[in-house]
């Protein structure tokens, strides 16, 4: 036992080690990525770990490991669970023999996400248990125990931390790393693993029959717990339970819901002892619906009474305001403090020297009237450069693009997708576009790594999660074998060639592919690449502002002229853009 200062995700990963994990897979996605990142850099590893090409692939690999009797973990973010939803639903029927935990991290406030969906709904949908930790310590403790729970009921267990758990740190009491590993043995049982209708009807019945005992067990394990202190109560779940405890008066009862499904009898017994109950939970009213069904005469406050917000991330102040609204006086009065107005925004932007910037620049220059569907990754930040017209989910740039092209829209369609995203769900879209005769240009932004989530390797990188060399796949060969009529690879730092490639692509018909290839500027720097920074010759700079529109954070601009700051990564594209030839390598002018 030791107390360490750990990130929620580090605590979760450590708990997996304590639980003798045998197999871990995942697809990176904020806020979940650090769990696999911690596991894959373990020096002495006696388990298998992989970054998979997408969440469905990760899920099925881990499920198979659990079918072989191993303890398996699969990680993703909430939207990744949509990709893995197909096997998720049926895995509840087949069940598992080893322990199987599916970590799906939710992101209230969509800090780094395209929606705010609630993983607890999937757990309910699939009839699977879901653990919902309220603190970093609890995230650790619950994850350590989750594998045993999975084995006890023979069911996958969903683990749902939120951003404020994954990316919070605290003093965490951790245990010893386990050394007791298992040997995989697949014991064939078609009645369990082959879901033909005759089997599946039986399996569905068995799944339903597991539910009552599961609900009782979650109470016994202390995940769902309460303290009765008065006639009024607050019921809270997830990190909101921590905020509630910070401001809860001594005479108000508290129930903390840390796991689903909730035992109705237990819940009714608690609710019935109170005249008034306030339910506080982030995102969907999952607990509130259960409370409303359980309540016979108790007055219930929550989202459905307008007392608690339906979306966004909560804070101690949000919770205190909801309590006030429900007639419960919080112990802390938070001041109304508003930010200063008019401070210029500082949103995240593409790095200085990022290869996506010149690619977007050239794309827009050649296709002035183009329609630009894009995808999930750093390059979504191309929105600020006017280079992103649509973004919905992984892989949707090519499919949305071909849909627009085939719907009769006459403007040219040029879509952008990263290498990792292309391998995730882009390939089926490309196949489909070729098969059905779309007329479009696909630009693969190939920076050799999954950059947005913290530089995880993918099949294009030439190295696995654990650092072993692996054959880098050929994007060109994939695109050609999908039937793309024209495939060109280009260095995006070479602006004249890049522009020429876009112009040549414009002259053709059918599905064309440009692969803009240059390592991510951050990984390049880490691997020792040093390029000379560029500088502006003030004598030649006319202050025309062309470089300013390029949007590089290393370019500063006054009314008179431009300067290049110490952020310069030396990509040199601005030198090609400058119409007066005022930009050159530092020291040469």
């Amino acid at each position, binding site marked *: 036992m030791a*107390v*360490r*200062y750990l*990130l929620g995700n580090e605590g979760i990963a450590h708990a997996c080690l304590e639980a003798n994990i045998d197999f871990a897979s995942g697809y990176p996605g*904020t*806020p979940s990525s*650090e769990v696999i990142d911690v596991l894959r850099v373990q020096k002495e590893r006696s388990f298998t770990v992989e970054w998979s090409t997408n969440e469905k692939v990760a899920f099925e690999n881990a499920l198979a490991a659990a079918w072989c009797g191993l303890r398996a973990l699969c990680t993703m973010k909430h939207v990744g669970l949509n990709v893995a939803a197909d096997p998720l639903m049926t895995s509840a029927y087949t069940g598992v023999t080893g322990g199987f935990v599916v970590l799906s991290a939710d992101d209230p406030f969509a*800090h*780094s996400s395209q929606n705010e969906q609630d993983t607890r709904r999937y757990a309910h949908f699939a009839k699977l248990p879901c653990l919902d930790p309220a603190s*970093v310590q609890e995230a650790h403790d619950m994850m350590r125990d989750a594998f045993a729970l999975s084995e006890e009921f023979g069911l996958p267990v969903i683990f749902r931390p939120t951003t*404020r758990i994954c*990316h*919070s*740190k*605290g*003093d965490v009491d951790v245990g010893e790393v386990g050394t007791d590993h298992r040997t995989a043995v697949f014991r064939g049982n078609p009645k369990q693993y082959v879901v033909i209708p005759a089997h599946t009807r039986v399996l569905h019945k068995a799944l339903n029959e597991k539910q009552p005992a599961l609900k009782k067990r979650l109470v016994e394990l202390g995940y769902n717990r309460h303290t009765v202190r008065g006639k009024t109560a607050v019921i809270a779940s997830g*990190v909101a339970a*921590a*905020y509630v*405890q*910070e401001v809860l008066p001594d005479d108000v009862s508290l129930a903390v819901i840390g796991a689903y499904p909730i035992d109705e009898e237990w819940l009714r017994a608690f609710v019935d002892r109170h005249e008034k109950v306030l339910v506080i939970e982030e995102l969907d009213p999952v607990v509130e619906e259960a409370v409303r069904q359980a309540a016979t005469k108790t007055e219930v406050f929550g989202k459905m009474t307008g007392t608690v917000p339906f979306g966004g991330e909560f*804070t*101690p*102040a949000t919770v205190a305001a909801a309590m006030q609204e429900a007639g419960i006086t919080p112990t802390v009065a*938070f*001041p*109304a*403090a*508003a*930010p*200063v107005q*008019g*401070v*210029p*925004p*500082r*949103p*995240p*932007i*593409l*790095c200085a020297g990022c290869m996506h910037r010149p690619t977007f620049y050239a794309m827009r220059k050649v296709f002035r009237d183009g329609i630009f569907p894009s995808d999930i990754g*750093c390059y979504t*930040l191309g929105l*600020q450069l006017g280079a992103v017209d649509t973004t919905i989910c992984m892989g949707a740039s090519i499919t949305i693009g071909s849909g627009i092209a085939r719907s009769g829209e006459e403007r040219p369609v040029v879509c952008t997708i990263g290498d990792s995203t292309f391998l995730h769900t882009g390939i089926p879209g490309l196949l489909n576009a070729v098969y059905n005769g779309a007329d479009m240009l696909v630009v693969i932004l190939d920076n050799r790594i999954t950059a*947005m*989530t*913290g530089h995880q390797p993918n099949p294009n990188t030439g190295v696995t999660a654990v650092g072993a060399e692996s054959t880098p796949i050929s994007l060109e060969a994939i695109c050609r074998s999908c039937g793309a009529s024209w495939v060109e690879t280009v260095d995006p730092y070479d602006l004249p060639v890049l522009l020429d490639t876009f112009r040549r692509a414009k002259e053709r018909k059918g599905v064309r592919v440009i692969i803009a290839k240059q390592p991510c500027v951050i990984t390049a720097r880490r691997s020792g690449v040093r390029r000379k920074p560029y500088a502006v010759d003030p004598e030649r700079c006319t202050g025309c502002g062309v470089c*300013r*529109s390029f*949007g*590089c*954070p290393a*370019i*500063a*601009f006054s009314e008179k002229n431009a300067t290049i700051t110490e952020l310069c990564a030396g990509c040199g594209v601005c030198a090609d853009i400058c119409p007066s030839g005022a930009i050159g390598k530092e020291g040469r002018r």
Partner: protein
Amino acid sequence: MKPSFDILIVGIGGQGTVLASNVLGEACILEHRSVRSAETHGMAQRGGSVESHIRIDGKFGSLIAPGTADLLIAFDLLEALRYRHYLPAGGRLVVNRHLVVPTSVYQQGLAVPDEESILAALSDLDVTCIDAAGLAEEAGSVLSQNIVMLGAASGDIPLRPETLEEAVRRCVPPKTVEINTKAFRLGRAAGKQGAPAP
């Protein structure tokens, strides 16, 4: 009574706010104190505005409510202005005399306040303004500005300075321990002088 001492560290992605908050967290572990903190990850690392919440002796959530921070450490003047509402009236601010103009200003032609007007706008707070870049250079690396800032604020932090120094040694890359220890001490000396804002 407020049970925790709440520090907000703000800056720009890449300036080392997370490392600075790690030092505070490690120091809490060394002193057997409870601690909660929250970090910015993911999209905001790309040169965006970032914040780290640290609650020394914190036992509940990791988020500090606006208007209730005990100390604001800002690695950039503009970010100090952006997050000043986390402090109560007259609150304590330790800020780097440094201003990175956001690219949005050039792209969208927005107005950006200069150093003097930002300091004037912050003058109702208890401000210490630090030349972190200069002190970091003196320590041996411009990259140690975050530790300079931590040193400058250390007089206001309820942890022993020797614990903080030990935490610095544990958190920075082994090769840079000497530079960062010096950076911490130079910062601490500068912070103690309490150079008031002009």
